[in-house]
Every structure is written in structure tokens, then in C-alpha cells.
């Protein structure tokens, strides 16, 4: 379509255009560079306009520190930015460190930069067309900088062809802005297409947790705000903050996982893998959490100069980062183990009445997990192992009656209300069983409905997992050891982790270059596809630095067995049995959801019930 060119020496302009290809792939990447520049300039307000998906016009205005006439000239030159003092590529503390953005954009579009430096009384404008800068001219402008990019890629028609529809490009840019807005709750953002504003996030003050949650609520929706737990952890100079969605508020894709390193949005496999590992016990394999995590590390701890588009990063100590993410997420989720998603209750209420009732406040767990239980009772509930029948149960019943006279066995449904003795317990006192499937219990300010099968399944699962963690996994020695051929590096990686794998029941040894021999396997997996398992794990070690497959498969087996060994829906339970189940749920971490991420109970507040009847 184009005539073959004669070989020429590459001009400066061409070099810029090639670089632009790397940095500015599409309007969204130009937007990213420009907004990051604005934030670096200390802006508290950034307004973005994209016309025709950014092809016709990208305009970014900020109220940052602005530039003087001299700085303006330098700004549009390649690799000449104010951000890297002394060419120090190590201490990268600002976002657009490569200093290529403006020059790159200028080489493929008509660029106009208007700016007034803080404290100065005059504004200046400079124009760049297809890489050629014009002289700086005086202009009229308020504080801050406005950058206008017109006819993006007009100078590189080939790239134009790869542009998607205006809507798709606009969507991408919006996603970029949302990510940056998450990291900067202190700044206000607006995005519009010239006709209307499609995204608006008012400034919400400092970086404090509340402000951040407020901002996340604006971007991810109110429901996230009501179903997230705060993460705040620090280890060896690394700081992890943010909010993680409850397992009951999960999604079918991982697209709503936002990760930031030093304020920079990243999509990093190591980090995503850590998230997957942390949620592994709480979610079915095809469910994904919603979360926004902010990792702050010393600049010399991380290499962000891996790729100009800067989505990937490299850490000096990946294991430390991983450990921090996994442990702090697990810790926070465990603490929230008793918080069934309010969305569930909200949805249930919504179904009863056409109007939206608004979400009830999330119920907070009592300080310690077992502290609210009388000693004997807690023991009793532990003793009453599954299933709630037969002899085992009788023992615990004895404890019950002796320790709490309110819970004398009685007819179903439990007679009269009278006393609210159950109010002392977070999950209340059982008041009856519906359809031999759900337990209804009364609490001080509402009622709780428990799915008996899901709840019991979780209890059994937790117990099995504990057993799994306490003692080493039983291993079946193989009569015919299995040799698995792998790539040499994969095999070496696997062998390096042999100790860890053995704790999980898999004994591997090196077998020449690029092969391992499996001598023992976890007994609970039975007659299994060993080659497949080992290959999957080798892949995971390469990708995510953790062998999830084995854990997941062991978890699956536990899950299946838990499911079969649990009280079925449809079984009638006596009142003491129901109460024992409630007490054990209180005493067990993570009992707010079953192993598939579904809630085990829902809570309805009295106020919500009153609303249903129009009393409020």
C-alpha cells in the first residue's frame, strides 16, 4: 500500500516517532502520561476531555505548579524533563520518570501546552506539530497547565489503523483515569467527551483510610464500600494499604483487581498470583475477589523501568512482597470471617420490596473470636463434632444444659420470645427451623437466617484444613516411581522447593537434566494424574512463584469430603443441635461463607424489618 522507501539515516524526528510507538500506543496511554504529569505537578484537580475517543482531541488541565517559559521549551524535548535530577534512574520517585511523554506525543500529534507557573503572573504557550516545536508565545491562562493533543497519530497512519472504535478507546482511557483516581483521592477528577461528563470523582481529602474508601466507593460502587475490609500492614519498610472485598462479594473475572506500587497502577503477575493465593481458601477457583491494594516500597526496592508502558515491575525481594500481601489479606479476611456480605441481605430485602432500602450496616465481629463464649460452652461446641447426631451430640448437650439454663431443649418452634438471652451471642439463639433447611435465630437487634448445610460444610472444611496444617500430609509411596520430563529450569525450580512440596505430601527428586522422579504422592489424591499435577506446578512456580495446584487439589478433596460429611439440607435439627451449630460457627474463623464463597448466613436488622412494614 505504501511505496518501499529508500534507506535513509534515521532523523531525530523518526526516533521520536518510534519511541512514541512504545510509549503512546493509543489515546489511553497518552492520557495516562499526561495525567501522571499533572499529578506530579501537585495538581488537586485534573479535568480531562476526549473527543472522538481521543483521536480528535485530548485535553488535560490541571491546577499544579505550572511551568515557566524556559521550562516549557525543555518540556517538549525528548529526555529533558525536570523530574530526573542528575539523570538518576535509580531514585524514581515520580510517575512519568522517562520524560518522554510530551516529546513522544508531540512527534505524532499537534500538541499545544499552555502553562502558568505558580507565583508568576504571565502564562505561556508552545506548539509542537509532528515533532517540530514552535517559539514560546505569551498567552492567557490561569494557574496550572493545560495540554491539548489534536489529531493523534496523524503523523503515523499505520498506527491509526490499529485504533479501536471511539467508544473502545474512550473506555480504555476511562479505565486508566479510574486507576489513577484510586491512587489519588486527594485530587478531583473529571472526564468528559466534550458534551457530557462521564466520570466525576470529587476530592476526598487526605490519604486516610476513610477518604480512600470513599473514593473507591465512587469508582467501584457503593456495594464495594459496604463489603470491603481495610488492609493496613507493614513489614521491613514495605507498606501495604487498601481495601479487599469480602469473599461473598466476588466476581467471575479478575478484572476488578487494582494494584498500585508507589502510586503507580500495575498489572503484575506476581502480585495477582499473591492475591489468588490469599483468597484460595475462601473462593471457588472460578471466582475472583474485588480489591484495590497500594504497595509502598522504597524506590530502590523496585525496578519500574522494565517496560515503557510501565505495567510490570520487578522487586528486589519478590518473596517478601508476596508474603506481605498473602499474610495481610488472610489476616484481614480471617478477622472478617464472620461478616456475611451485606449485599446478600440487601438483595433479599430488595426482593421483598420494590424500593431500595439501602444497605444495612455491616455487622462487626466481637473483638476476639472465642472470648464471648462461656468456657464450657465453647468446649462443648468443639466436642460436638459433626454430624450433630448420635452419641457425640449427647455429650455436648449435657454441657449445654448445665452451662446455660436458657437453652433447655424445647418444642419446635421454640416457644415464646420472652427473654432475649441469646443476645449475648453474636449469632443469637435459635428460634426454629424452616423447611428443615434454614435455622432462624434471634439477635438483639434483628434476626439471622443460617443455611445449615453450607454452615456445617464450612465447619468441617475448616477442621480438615487445620488437621492438614497441623500434621504433615500422609504420603503414599509409589511402587512405580513416575518420571516427569520438564524444561531444565522448571525441573530445577521444582527441586529447589522439594522440602515445601514434601510437607504437602509430594516427594520429588532430580532425575538427570530436565526431569524429576516422583516417589511419593499425597495419599488423599488416590490414583491421580501425577504427570499433569507436576507439570501444572512447574508452570505455577514459573508464573507465580508458588505451587498452588497441589494446595488447591488438596483443598478440593477436603471440600468434597466436607460436603459429603456435612448435615444435609432437609434434616431436622433439634434446638440444642441448632444452637450448638451457631456456637461452633462463632468459634470458627471464616464461617461467614462456605468454601464456595457463598454466605452461610444472612442477617436482617430489626430496622430493616420495620422498614418492610412501613414503620419507618
Amino acid at each position, binding site marked *: *500500500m505504501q511505496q518501499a522507501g529508500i534507506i535513509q539515516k534515521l532523523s531525530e524526528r523518526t526516533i521520536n516517532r518510534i519511541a512514541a510507538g512504545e510509549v503512546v500506543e493509543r489515546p489511553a496511554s497518552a492520557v495516562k502520561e499526561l495525567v501522571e504529569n499533572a499529578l506530579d505537578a501537585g495538581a488537586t484537580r485534573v479535568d480531562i476531555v476526549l473527543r472522538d475517543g481521543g483521536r480528535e482531541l485530548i485535553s488535560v488541565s490541571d491546577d499544579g505548579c505550572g511551568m515557566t517559559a524556559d521550562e516549557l521549551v525543555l518540556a517538549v524535548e525528548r529526555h529533558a524533563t525536570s523530574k530526573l535530577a542528575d539523570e538518576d534512574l535509580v531514585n524514581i520517585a515520580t510517575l512519568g520518570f522517562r520524560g518522554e511523554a510530551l516529546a513522544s506525543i508531540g512527534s505524532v500529534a499537534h500538541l499545544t501546552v499552555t502553562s502558568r507557573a505558580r507565583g508568576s503572573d504571565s502564562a505561556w504557550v508552545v506548539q509542537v506539530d509532528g515533532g517540530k516545536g514552535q517559539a514560546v508565545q505569551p498567552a492567557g491562562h490561569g494557574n496550572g497547565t493545560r495540554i491539548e493533543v489534536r489529531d493523534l497519530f496523524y503523523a503515523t*497512519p499505520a498506527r*491509526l*489503523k490499529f*485504533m479501536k*472504535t471511539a467508544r473502545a478507546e474512550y473506555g480504555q482511557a476511562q479505565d486508566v483515569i479510574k486507576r489513577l483516581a484510586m491512587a489519588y483521592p486527594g485530587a478531583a477528577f473529571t472526564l468528559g467527551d466534550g458534551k457530557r461528563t462521564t466520570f466525576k470523582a470529587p476530592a476526598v481529602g487526605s490519604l486516610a483510610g476513610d477518604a480512600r474508601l470513599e473514593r473507591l466507593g465512587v469508582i467501584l460502587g457503593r456495594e464495594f464500600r459496604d463489603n470491603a475490609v481495610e488492609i493496613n500492614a507493614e513489614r521491613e519498610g514495605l507498606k501495604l494499604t487498601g481495601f479487599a472485598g469480602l469473599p461473598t462479594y466476588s466476581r467471575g473475572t479478575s478484572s476488578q483487581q487494582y494494584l498500585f506500587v508507589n502510586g503507580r497502577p500495575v498489572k503484575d503477575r506476581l502480585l495477582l498470583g499473591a492475591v489468588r493465593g490469599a483468597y484460595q481458601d475462601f473462593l471457588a477457583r472460578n471466582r475472583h475477589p474485588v480489591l484495590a491494594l497500594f504497595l509502598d516500597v522504597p524506590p530502590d526496592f523496585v525496578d519500574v523501568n522494565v517496560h515503557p508502558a510501565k505495567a510490570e515491575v520487578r522487586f528486589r525481594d519478590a518473596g517478601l512482597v508476596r508474603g506481605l500481601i498473602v499474610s495481610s489479606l488472610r489476616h484481614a479476611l480471617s478477622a472478617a470471617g464472620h461478616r456475611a456480605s451485606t449485599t446478600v441481605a440487601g438483595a433479599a430485602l430488595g426482593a421483598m420490596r420494590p424500593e431500595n432500602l439501602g444497605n444495612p450496616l455491616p455487622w462487626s465481629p466481637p473483638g476476639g473470636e472465642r472470648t464471648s463464649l462461656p468456657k464450657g460452652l465453647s468446649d462443648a461446641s468443639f466436642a460436638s463434632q459433626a454430624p450433630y447426631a448420635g452419641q457425640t451430640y449427647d455429650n455436648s448437650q449435657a454441657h449445654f444444659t448445665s452451662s446455660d439454663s436458657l437453652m433447655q431443649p424445647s418444642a419446635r418452634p421454640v416457644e415464646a420470645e420472652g427473654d432475649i438471652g441469646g443476645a449475648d451471642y453474636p449469632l443469637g439463639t435459635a428460634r426454629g427451623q424452616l423447611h428443615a433447611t434454614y435455622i432462624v435465630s434471634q439477635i438483639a437487634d434483628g434476626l439471622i437466617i443460617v443455611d445449615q448445610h453450607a454452615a456445617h460444610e464450612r465447619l468441617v472444611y475448616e477442621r480438615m484444613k487445620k488437621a492438614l496444617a497441623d500434621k504433615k500430609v500422609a504420603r503414599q509411596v509409589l511402587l512405580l516411581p513416575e518420571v516427569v520430563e520438564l524444561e531444565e529450569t522448571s525441573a530445577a525450580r521444582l527441586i529447589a522447593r522439594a522440602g515445601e512440596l514434601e510437607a504437602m505430601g509430594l516427594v520429588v527428586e532430580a532425575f538427570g537434566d530436565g526431569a524429576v522422579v516422583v516417589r511419593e504422592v499425597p495419599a488423599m489424591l488416590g490414583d491421580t494424574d501425577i504427570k499433569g499435577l507436576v507439570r501444572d506446578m512447574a508452570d505455577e512456580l514459573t508464573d507465580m512463584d508458588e505451587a498452588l495446584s497441589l494446595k488447591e487439589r488438596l483443598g478440593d478433596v477436603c471440600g468434597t469430603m466436607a460436603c459429603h460429611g456435612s448435615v444435609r439440607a432437609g434434616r431436622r435439627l433439634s434446638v440444642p443441635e441448632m444452637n450448638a451449630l451457631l456456637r461452633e460457627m462463632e468459634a470458627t474463623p471464616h464461617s461467614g461463607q462456605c468454601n464456595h464463597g457463598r454466605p452461610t448466613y444472612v442477617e436482617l436488622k430489626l430496622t430493616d424489618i420495620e422498614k418492610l412494614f412501613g414503620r419507618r
Partner: protein
Amino acid sequence: MDDNRPELHLHMSSKLVGQEGAERAFLDAYNDDKLQHAWLISGPKGVGKATLAYKVACFMLASSAEGTSAGASLFGDAISPDSLTVDDNNPVKQRIISGSHGDLMVINRSVNVKTGKLRNDIVVDDVRKLSKFYSQTASEGGWRVAIIDAADEMNINAANALLKNLEEPPEKALLLLVSHAPGRLLPTIRSRCRQLALKPLGDDAVVDILRSQYPALNDSDYKTLAALSGGAPGRALELAEGDGLGLYGRITSLMMTLPRLDIPALHQLADSLASIKADSDYRLFRALFQDIMQRLIRFSATGQVAPAALIAENQLFETLGPTRGVDQWLDLWEKMAEQFTSADAVNLDRKQILLTCFGKLAGRA
């Protein structure tokens, strides 16, 4: 039900035309005892890839049946066959047609039991059937032949599963991959197959086939159909069967009036293609329309005119071509392709799709 028998009948009974080179290449490998265990048969849709695959399968199974019968060895060394053709009365061919030959396995997209719909991909369970097939000895004692039609439709898991079979093929097993877009296959699959590219036929050859099946058409019709088919006899017959000529005429006459749109005629066309019953017509339309656009883009980029039989298109190109730059045409073409695909994926109203396509053409023309 995952019954692939309609296609099986089609390919088993079709005559393969114009692919003597490919047949020869296979036969030579067979006669020289250098038969590769996996072959990748590629070429445009309708050119005869699956027909060749079935022909090869039938040949292999029929000749191994002869080989195992006691009589053959009486004549000393068997004579090298000089054709892949197997007699219609051969019982092996009979059994292949009825789907009861135990040593032929055909893998296509299967039906999802839950939804009752044909899957969009060949999935890993489909390919696993192949592992089972290869793990046991042959039913009739000779070769085992598997056909994957089309290999492009395998999803990544299925492709990886197939790779294992390709790496450790059993004795006397032949795998035939049929592919319209070999570029989409994993490079590791491609590199393990001997490639057999089927070339488009000359117009005359296509006309001959058309004449034998549809003797009532006139010469110019034959030529137009041949040109539209791009050398793929299967497509030419499809066009002849489904009144492709009429449809082609309606599309070009609609395009002729651009940038003005003949709204009543457009709606008439869209209505006639939108119903469920007109499914095959809709697909014909889609293929024809996209072909015209492709030729238009080629013209606008290189100045290459349409084949002589489609002379009318040149006039169209002259008027329409210069109204947009090449990249704009490409952009438009991409958008339309996307729209057609998403229409199939989520069952959009076909009438709307048609109206949008022409609207886009007119919008900026």
C-alpha cells in the same frame, strides 16, 4: 448430539477435483514407506480439504484391510497403488459412511449437553477421545486414522492435549488436521505435521464442476460463480445452490447507488435475510459482502481490478474507492467484521446488522 454424519456423507461422496498434486504427494510418501504420522491439510474454505482428508482416511483403511486379508501376500510384493480412490462398493467405504468403522475417529466441535448447542470450540474432552482411541489396538487390525476438522477450532487446552498425542504417536496411526487458517495453530503443532497446502482451482475447472451439477445455467453465470468462489469448488456449489448469483446482484446494485441508499430495496433485502429460515442465505450474503469489500480495499490500495467475470465491480470501485483512504476502508472493514462476529456470538438481530453495514458505507461515502 454430536453427530458429524452430514459432513461425513458430504465429504465421502464428493469427488475431489484439482488437487492431484496433493494426492500425489501423499501417495508418494505412502509408496516410499515414508508416511509422516501427522498431516496438516490447509487451504481456503470449500477447496476440498476435508474431502481430501476423508479420501485419504478411506484409502488407508481400505488398503490396510486388503493388506491383512490372506490373499494379498500370494502375489508377492503388493503393487504400489497409483490412486487414492477407493471403489464405492468397498465394504470399508460403506462402514465409513455409516459411521461404524472402528478405526476412524473424527473430531469436530461437539454439542454442549447442558445447552444443547454446538460449542464454538473443539474442547479438551473432544481431543481426549483421541488419546483413548490411540491407546487401544485397531478394531480391524490395520491403521488407525483420526481427522480433526477443523483444527483451527481447537481451544488452547485442546491444542495442548493434542500436542501430547503428536509427540508420542503410536505405530500405524495417522492424524489428519484440516485447517483454513494454519497460522492460528500452535507453532509446535504445525512443526510436527507435514503440511499439504491445497491451492485454489482455475476458473475453468470450477466451471466444469458447476456444469456437471447445475447444467441449466448459462455461461456467464458459470463464470461469475467461478470468480466469486475464488477457486474453491465447494463455495461455488454453495453459491449455485443458494442463489448466490441473485444475492450478489442485489448487493452490487445496492452498492452502485452509494452514497445514496435505496432504502426500500435495502429493507427488502434485510428482511429476506433476517429470518431463522434464511440462515444459509444470510451466511452467503455475509461471505459475498465481505469478499466485495476485500476486493474494494485491494483496489483502493493497489489499483488491482476485479476479475473479468465480475466486471461490474470495477465500476463500483471507480466511484466508491476514492471516497476514502485505504486506512479508512480498512477501519470500516474491521468494524464490520467485528459486528458480524458479535452478531453471531450474542444472536443480534440480523436485519439491524445489515442496515448498519450499509449505513456505514453510506454514512461516509
